[in-house]
């Protein structure tokens, strides 16, 4: 075999290795979801969704955790959405190329890489203790809001960046002020992109466990939160709690709850992708 044939042969070997690696990721994803479905799908019924947690696996349900997750999701959206989008607008439209912008940019990039559990420590100290909110839905939501803020800001910036300069020029040329241009032209034009980013960020928040454990969210909450100041649990913590129990029945519960959690995550991702595709078409 001469060198060229050897090189061709290596090339083919690598190609199959590449296909193998790519497929193995997807196969694992499938095995993994399949396994969880087998473990948990029989456990899912209406009672499982509406039952309170219980000492006995077969009587336990996810009601309080599900409601807790919805509370957290709602409050986090209310807090992180306006702040994140406003910060994104500022960075993209106002603070271009000054010193502050450079500082903000490196700072946000760094925040995006801070482990989520560190946000938990921040929330524990600032929201739970100093602001005296206790282990409440509000404290949890504030913590998660800070956690997803960098994601919302970055995706807002990218969405705004994609708006053609010609649209801005046209608006300014008609005598619109900067804010009028942003409000009437840029935001509507970049809305789909911003929405995509926010939904993806929220889908991350819905799956977060560690920071909420640190701020003191409970594994066992016998009631649904009635106000932002109530104690709470969320789906991932409920799952974590069930995984840590030795009885087989709880593993089944955990699998069933995971199916529901994954369902929520995938649906949110699906919606995000839908908005992105719809929005991207607009510029093509």
């Amino acid at each position: 075999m001469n060198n060229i044939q050897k090189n061709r042969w290596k090339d083919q070997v690598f190609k199959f290795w590449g296909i193998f690696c790519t497929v193995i990721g997807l196969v694992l994803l499938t095995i993994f979801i399949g396994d969880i479905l087998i473990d948990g799908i029989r456990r899912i019924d209406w009672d499982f969704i509406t039952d309170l947690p219980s000492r006995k696996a077969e009587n336990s349900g996810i009601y309080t955790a599900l409601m807790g997750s919805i509370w957290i999701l709602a409050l986090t959206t209310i807090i992180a959405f306006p702040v994140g989008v406003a910060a994104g607008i500022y960075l993209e439209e106002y603070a271009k190329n000054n010193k502050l912008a450079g500082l903000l940019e490196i700072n946000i990039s760094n925040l995006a890489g801070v482990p989520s559990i560190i946000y938990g420590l921040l929330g524990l100290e600032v929201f739970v203790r100093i602001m005296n909110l206790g282990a409440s839905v509000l404290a949890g939501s504030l913590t998660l809001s800070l956690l997803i803020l960098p994601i919302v800001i970055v995706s807002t910036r990218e969405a705004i960046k994609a708006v053609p300069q010609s649209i801005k020029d046209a608006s300014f040329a008609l005598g619109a002020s900067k804010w009028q241009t942003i409000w009437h032209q840029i935001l509507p034009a970049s809305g789909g992109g911003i929405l995509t980013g926010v939904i993806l960020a929220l889908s991350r928040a819905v799956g977060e466990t560690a920071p909420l454990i640190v701020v003191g969210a409970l594994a066992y909450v016998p009631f649904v939160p009635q106000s932002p100041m109530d104690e709470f649990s969320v789906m991932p913590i409920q799952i974590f709690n069930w995984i840590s129990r030795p009885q087989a029945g709880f593993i089944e519960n955990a699998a069933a709850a995971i199916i529901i959690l994954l369902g929520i995550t995938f649906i949110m991702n699906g919606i995000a992708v839908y908005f992105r595709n719809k929005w991207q078409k607009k510029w093509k």
Partner: protein
Amino acid sequence: MEITMENPKKKGVVLDSIVDTSLKKTPKIETKNIKVWYEEFNAIKGISMSIKPNTVTAFIGPSGCGKSTFLRLFNRMNDYVDGFSLEGKIKINGQNIYKKNVNVEELRKEVGMVFQKPNPFPKSIFDNVAYGLKIQGIKDKQLINDRVISSLKQVGLWEEVKDDLKKSGLALSGGQQQRLCIARTLAVEPSIILMDEPTSALDPISTAKIEELIFQLKQKYTIVIVTHNMQQASRISDYTAFFYLGELIEFNKTKNIFTNPEKKQTENYITGRFG
């Protein structure tokens, strides 16, 4: 196992025939009724031509006429384009290069290519020129060294860069970069060099240097060059082919094409009435 370039007989099928000087009169490149599609789009609509060894052939025509596509058939660079399909036969040194068992890598050693924009690798000047030898698995340092020097000398770059061979190829000027890319091609000792508008990104002085170089290279190589510049075609080429909408309108000695074209379309184009 190591291939020594001094012994071309050891190399693959494509090379064997060039050693035989009796083949000099037979065409270097020969195409028969070539048709090319990109998905549904018919880019080349049945072209036959033959190119003689040690000549410079210029492909001219308006943008989108298929001249670049046609050129890139000769070293099978279109193979990577999605939806590409081909009908017809292309023979180089008498061998059909689109036959199943043809080794594309071997073919490209034989048929070198210089691109529109200078595209040196982000490596040193030396490594740029040595690249083709290294990927063939040649490890003989002396041989590589000699070949790098002789290639740089051939393109007239040696005196300019001999003291900084370790410098990045990207640090050179545009014209120097393009000559580096030609040197890189020469280093693997092809017998055909394809040039896809090699001077379109260069200033007039660099262009003149490259044209001068092409003139010299003709002694050893068969050169096919795509150009937008009709003066350039008339200055450097022996033969000129005029393409229009995927067809070969006229192919003749350059002198004839520019002084006495047979077809009306050719005349319109070279006199600047369209294109």
